[in-house]
């Protein structure tokens, strides 16, 4: 088998057993990128191959047991800072921005021995569900190049699906890891808010953003999570909890686990094939010994509205720093105000501008109580829904997205339709709980369908355990796009 096809677990084992040199693995992955990224467009910046090969060449075959990602080529979504590496957020406003600092996540990956392949495409500032909002180009879905890979971490998901990296890192504000993972037939994990440091992640909506892995298997997600999780003194919102070895929770056993099925997540108008496949996957889990229970998450209907107020409000403030004064694009105008206007008019794309305006409006004097404050109250109710549900069950299972990958251009004229593709993932961010999307089958067009498993705060172990048991049994992870 070509080394680029390997999972992290397989690659690490092969390196440890002296069967694979880190350089050979890197060579394979970079050759793969050269061969097919022209078609997929997953990367905004590919690391110079000779630099990567030099780095891999210094790593010894045989591995290092304390460095779980020793020699593993991984892609990073282009909204996380790496010292000396251009970080664009897929925005023209940061086209030439080279950060003089590392994000905590990439520091941790460095310590674990990873090799950077490059920075992947996204919707500009992670605002979108298809990567069509990238300021540079649209990433294609490796299963069908006429379709979107989902978003905003579409580049990372497509790169993993097309074997242009062994694993990738994404960020998830309202579904930006899970929905593209679902569309691309890979595993995507959004950890509990606060589990992974956000330092160095360019903020979209600070109270919702979380970094997580996009991988080929649940086991790989567990391996990466163990590396990147943990409290960070540079991020006041990060939690200082003990980090378990998540891979150890992968017992393959589902017996006695209580899985809740929220009625509100099987809605009219959702894709029938998606519903059938997801229900079948849940039935499989029941056969494996899980106890399936019907539950209620009664405030689900308000999640999208609350999310688009909170996320855009925070974004309107987070993106104020791109003003042409200090770094990034500057388009000089006739005076200061004009320079602000010109810089931001040319530097930001349409969706980013739309969200800045929405958020600015929602926070305006006289509207704050009706919008932002109300949305925060709804958020509390949604959080409570999950607290109540988790008194009854260990894990909640839902579809990740109401549809499979849609055609490129299909929803670009209808932002509301685009927003609804995150309808099943958004509540999780509002509640701050962890969730994983794993492949659970295909529709008649051979497009992947994702199953979302949601867990209690800081109980990533439960969703990894459930996801892993199902994945090993169902074996969908073995099916790969024929690109």
């Amino acid at each position, binding site marked *: 088998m070509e080394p680029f096809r390997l999972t992290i677990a397989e690659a690490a084992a092969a390196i440890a057993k002296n069967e694979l040199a880190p350089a050979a693995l890197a060579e394979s992955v970079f050759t793969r990128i050269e061969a097919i990224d022209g078609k997929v467009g997953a990367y905004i910046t590919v690391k110079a191959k000779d630099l990567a090969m030099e780095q891999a060449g210094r790593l010894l075959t045989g591995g290092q047991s304390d460095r779980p990602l020793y020699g593993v080529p991984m892609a990073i979504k282009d909204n996380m800072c790496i010292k000396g590496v251009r*970080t664009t957020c897929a925005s023209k406003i940061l086209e030439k921005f080279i950060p003089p*600092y590392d994000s905590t996540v990439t520091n941790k990956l460095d310590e674990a021995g990873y090799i950077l392949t490059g920075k992947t495409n996204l919707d500009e500032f992670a605002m979108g569900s298809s990567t069509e909002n990238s300021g540079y180009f649209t990433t294609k879905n490796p299963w069908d190049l006429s379709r979107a890979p989902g978003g905003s971490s579409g580049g990372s998901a497509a790169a993993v699906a097309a074997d242009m990296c062994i694993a990738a890192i994404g960020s998830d504000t309202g579904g930006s890891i899970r929905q593209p993972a679902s569309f691309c037939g890979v595993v995507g994990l959004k950890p509990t808010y606060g589990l992974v440091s956000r330092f*160095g992640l360019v903020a979209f909506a600070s109270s919702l953003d979380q970094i997580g892995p996009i991988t080929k298997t649940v086991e790989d997600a567990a391996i990466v999570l163990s590396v990147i999780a943990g409290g960070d003194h540079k991020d006041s*919102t990060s939690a200082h909890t003990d980090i378990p070895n998540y891979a150890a929770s992968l017992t393959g056993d589902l017996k006695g686990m209580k899985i809740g099925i929220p009625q509100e997540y099987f809605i009219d108008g959702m894709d029938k094939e998606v519903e059938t496949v997801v229900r079948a996957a849940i039935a499989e889990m029941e056969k494996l010994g899980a106890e399936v229970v019907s539950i209620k998450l009664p405030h689900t209907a308000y999640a999208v509205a609350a999310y688009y107020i909170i996320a855009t409000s925070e974004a309107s403030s987070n993106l104020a720093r791109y003003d042409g*004064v*200090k770094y990034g694009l500057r388009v000089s105008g006739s005076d200061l105000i004009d320079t602000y206007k010109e810089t931001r008019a040319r530097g930001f794309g349409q969706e980013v501008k739309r969200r800045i305006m929405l958020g600015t409006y929602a*926070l305006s004097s006289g509207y704050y109580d009706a919008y*932002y404050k109300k949305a925060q109250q709804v958020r509390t109710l949604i959080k409570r829904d999950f607290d109540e549900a988790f008194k009854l069950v260990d894990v909640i299972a839902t579809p990740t997205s109401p549809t499979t990958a849609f055609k490129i251009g299909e929803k670009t004229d209808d932002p509301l339709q685009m927003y609804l593709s995150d309808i099943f993932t958004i509540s999780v961010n509002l509640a701050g709980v962890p969730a994983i999307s794993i492949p659970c089958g295909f529709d008649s067009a051979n497009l992947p369908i994702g199953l979302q498993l949601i867990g209690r705060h800081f109980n990533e172990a439960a969703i990894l355990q459930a996801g892993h048991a199902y994945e090993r049994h169902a074996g969908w992870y073995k099916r790969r796009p024929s690109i």
Partner: protein
Amino acid sequence: MKDYNDYETVIGLEIHAQMRTHSKMFCGCPTTFGSEPNTQTCPVCIGMPGVLPVINKTALEFTIKTGLALSCRISPFSRFARKNYFYPDLPKGYQISQYELPICEGGFVMLNVDGAERRINLTRIHMEEDAGKNIHDGAGSHVDLNRAGVPLMEIVSEPEIRTPKEAAAYVRKLRTILRYLDVCDGNMEEGSLRCDANVSIRPRGTEALGVKTEIKNINSFKFIEKALEYEIERQRRVLSEGGRIIQETRLWNTSAGVTESMRSKEEAHDYRYFPEPDLVPLMVDDGWISEIKKGIPELPDDKIRRYIEEFKLPAYDADLLASEKQTAAWFEEAVSLGANPKDISNWMMGELMRLLNEKAIAIEASQLTPVHLCGLIKLVSDGTINLKIAKTVFEDMFNTGKTAGELVKEKGLVQISDVGELEKTVEQVIAESPNETARYKAGETKLTGFFVGEVMKKTRGKANPKAVNEILKRLLG
């Protein structure tokens, strides 16, 4: 003519105090004043993408300390908020401040204005970060972000100040307390203490507040009263001419001595405050508050009371000695060495302050220490030297750091109290001044001063004046 007594003035002050922390509010950059532009910056205070703020615990401690000293309620739960506006010196496009839930609420400042006690209540004290500075020169406009992120306390008073004089007294009192607490150096010229004033006037006897203006840019103690007097006068003129006050922000123009319109209410920013999502709410536990309380020194009002009661000082002396922590410490050290408090006070308020001012030396840096002063006072009280000589000794001690004993010995300044020796000198003076002697004997007794002066000339000031007087009376009488 206009009757100004028809109107009552209402003033509320917002004081921004830069805290004397080593590092900035949300990052580890130093806070030193006057460094080369943009040398005290990092990705956090420059507002680079993806970086996050981390609260400076010392700044929080300083604010709580100040709150406790001013009798505020310390909120067990408070939070930061973002104040959003665009300006080149504001790198993130928002200032991290506090809005709905400030760390300190309530509290008050006691004033003594023209002998009357006044209590000015506080609305709140909150923490925030400073902005940078825009610099304009021939080459264009520049931004210096050294100051961006320096911790500030904003101390907001209720609109209870009634005169410009009270306003100035309020700022002085706050400055004294902040300096006592060692949380702010209080330097208005360097901008570490800044004052914005909300001013309105209303017909005397009415309750409803008039339309207010906000005066900014009052950057010196000298100008607090001037700016407020100008603005009150301006508002009275507008009203008495039948006009209306416009709610606006006005800038104090130091050189022209006037306030000038900066922006109207319609042009005011909508700051779109919302809770800062990058920082978790602040929970302050009682244990820490008690710890901080223990670190609060005796404050000026308590000192003044004690100086009056314990040391029997006049209120004027007590007030002056307690006005600066270092001055008070110097005084108390001298008292502890056993000298008479009023003697110490006299020397300090007279010679010491004069010399410190002349030489621009801080009292704690003076080589004349309380030990020096007490040595001098002892030499005067035991009659070794007279007061006039003591003054020259004092100045010599100040300049050389030598003790009074050393200087007196070195220069042979010991007072001549020996009656026999003095009598000879007095006789000599009488013999040399037949005219004056005749006039004195004819009843012109005010000539005593002339004779004493002549004796002092001959003894180079060392004669014991009391003894000389007695001898004169006896020999001429």
